[in-house]
């Protein structure tokens, strides 16, 4: 379901919310803008909407019949996508992350994943992006769920440019893809040493060091970068890895990040179980046993209102939490792993 409408282009906005043309784009806006152009160039592509209000129907005038608003009905949305994909199409399906991955999960599992169909689920409002709209609209489980499904590629772009790249590159993948986007604009990550964005290949934002911070998603990656700066003041060199593709995991990069490091800190906008931290811990336990501390949402639903930044701070998905975790790992004290009871009081 949606019932949000914070996407709606026609939403009434007051003057103080007006922003100039220089406003940075959000990842979902870059997706919205690039999709019609890709559809004009490739007639396999469909845009299946679920009354999100993200799209302007007129943008699809050149591709008649391939933009469809299927209403507020996620099972039908995913099933229709599977049927189209089984007939040679490549549907892009858009709904909010939590409605895609919890409400429509069985359809995704059986009709899309089981048949390895090239459906692209582009999910908005990932993590705590829905802010004040509350726990019904937060998606803190989607990465864990989606990375378990055989054959799914799961991507969390770090900024609007990466989102556009992820959408473009997804066209070349044979199987199903889940792309998690946020809601509001975030700063572009500095390409710097990172090199080009490539699905499946982690980006080194800071070179290997005493500890490694592995993150995915705009806010966690920005927090990881800031944590690395803060750690430098403590004389600690921290690697930062943008692990934008939690599945399939770039095992070589994760192992390389851990090599020579005293520990690994993961940062994600997700419940601490099952997501990026879980994936990294599993991988390192198998390939290169290393202490891992997971920074993420403690095992609770948000109890109070607040925008995304407020909730991230309230629940300790911050640079400061990553620093604390890293220093604990380095100090070799017990409890390097962040425990839920601690952070739920943050």
């Amino acid at each position, binding site marked *: 379901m949606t019932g949000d*409408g914070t996407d709606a282009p026609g939403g009434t*906005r007051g003057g103080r919310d007006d922003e100039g043309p220089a406003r940075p784009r959000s990842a979902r806006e870059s997706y919205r803008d690039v999709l019609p152009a890709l559809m004009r160039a490739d007639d396999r592509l469909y845009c299946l909407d679920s009354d999100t*209000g993200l799209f302007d129907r007129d943008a699809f005038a050149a591709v008649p019949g391939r933009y469809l608003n299927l209403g*507020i009905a996620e099972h039908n949305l995913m099933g229709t996508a599977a049927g189209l994909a089984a007939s040679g199409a490549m549907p892009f399906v858009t709904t909010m992350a939590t409605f895609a991955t919890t409400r429509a999960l069985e359809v995704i599992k059986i009709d899309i994943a089981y048949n390895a169909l090239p459906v692209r689920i582009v999910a908005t409002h990932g993590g705590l992006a829905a802010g004040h*709209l*509350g726990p019904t*609209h937060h998606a803190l489980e989607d990465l864990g769920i989606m990375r378990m499904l055989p054959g799914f590629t799961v991507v969390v772009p770090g900024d609007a440019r990466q989102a556009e790249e992820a959408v473009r590159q997804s066209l070349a993948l044979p199987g199903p893809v889940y792309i998690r986007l946020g809601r509001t604009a975030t700063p572009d990550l500095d390409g710097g040493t990172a090199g080009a964005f490539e699905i499946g290949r982690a980006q080194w934002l800071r070179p290997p060091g005493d500890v490694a911070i592995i993150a995915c998603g705009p806010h966690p990656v920005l927090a990881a970068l800031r944590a690395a700066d803060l750690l430098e003041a403590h004389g600690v060199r921290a690697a930062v890895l943008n692990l934008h593709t939690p599945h399939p995991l770039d095992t070589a990069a994760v192992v390389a990040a851990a090599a020579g490091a005293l520990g690994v800190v993961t940062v994600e906008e997700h419940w601490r179980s099952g997501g990026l931290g879980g994936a990294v811990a599993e991988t390192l336990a198998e390939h290169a046993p290393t202490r891992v501390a997971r920074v993420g949402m403690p095992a609770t639903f948000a109890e109070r*209102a607040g*925008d995304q930044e407020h909730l991230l701070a309230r629940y300790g998905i911050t640079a400061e939490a990553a620093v604390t975790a890293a220093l604990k790992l380095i100090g070799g004290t017990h409890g390097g792993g962040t425990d839920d009871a601690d952070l739920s009081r943050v």
Partner: protein
Amino acid sequence: MDGPAPVDLAAAAHRIREHIVRMCGGPEGGHLGGSMSLVEILTVLYFEVMRVDPLRPAAPERDILLLSKGHGAVCLYSVLAERGFFPVAELAEYARPGSRLMGHPVRAVPGVEMPTGSLGHGLALANGFALADRGRRCFAVLGDGELQEGAVWEAAMASAALGLANLTVVVDRNGLQITGPTEDAIGLEPLADRWRSFGWTVREAAGHDFDALRTALARDGAAGPVAVIAHTVKGRGLPSLEAKTRSHYAKLSGRQAERSLAVLRARRKRAAS
């Protein structure tokens, strides 16, 4: 636990619309259109039809309401506050950091039975509440766009099969969803016939008319569940937004909120004279 002392429903509805406008003028804005369309429905239910006690919100003998269209939260919060479940002053905290008044109803708010916001959950929940005690009345208030969710119809089949005569659905038939008219997305008509074919007694009512709603919501011995299709106007009360798709979510500037309040007051004055 009978209804409160007779109140001027029109006056209450006016205050509730003012609260909604003020909340939509807060830092996050709010779901204006679908809250304004709900005002008379929730007002008559909480002030006249339902047995509730604001001082004992969990009283076992209370009637139950589930706002299945959870994005009508700012209306529900306003009605609950006006009815005395919590102080009206708290409404000013809506959606602000630290407030319990989130953008969709949460159980931490006195009077809210279950959290809603993901559409299509309310009717199945109401089936459970109605089964648990057939002596109390249970109401599920659904949006019309929400009826596109398949889960609604699973639940509707079950309500009839279970003979839940204590269950009433109210459909806020304002005709619009986020992208435009419901009939341009995935159409719902013939809506009354659809409910009837699922085994429900159907009543249609003018959704901003207290007398019509009162009649439609009266318990009059129907053998099974009753669906009230309340014909409403999205954004009702603010002429510039009435029946407009863009009324769905509004973040009003201070000036817009003040102007909207002035419009509401002028209309109220005209209606009263």
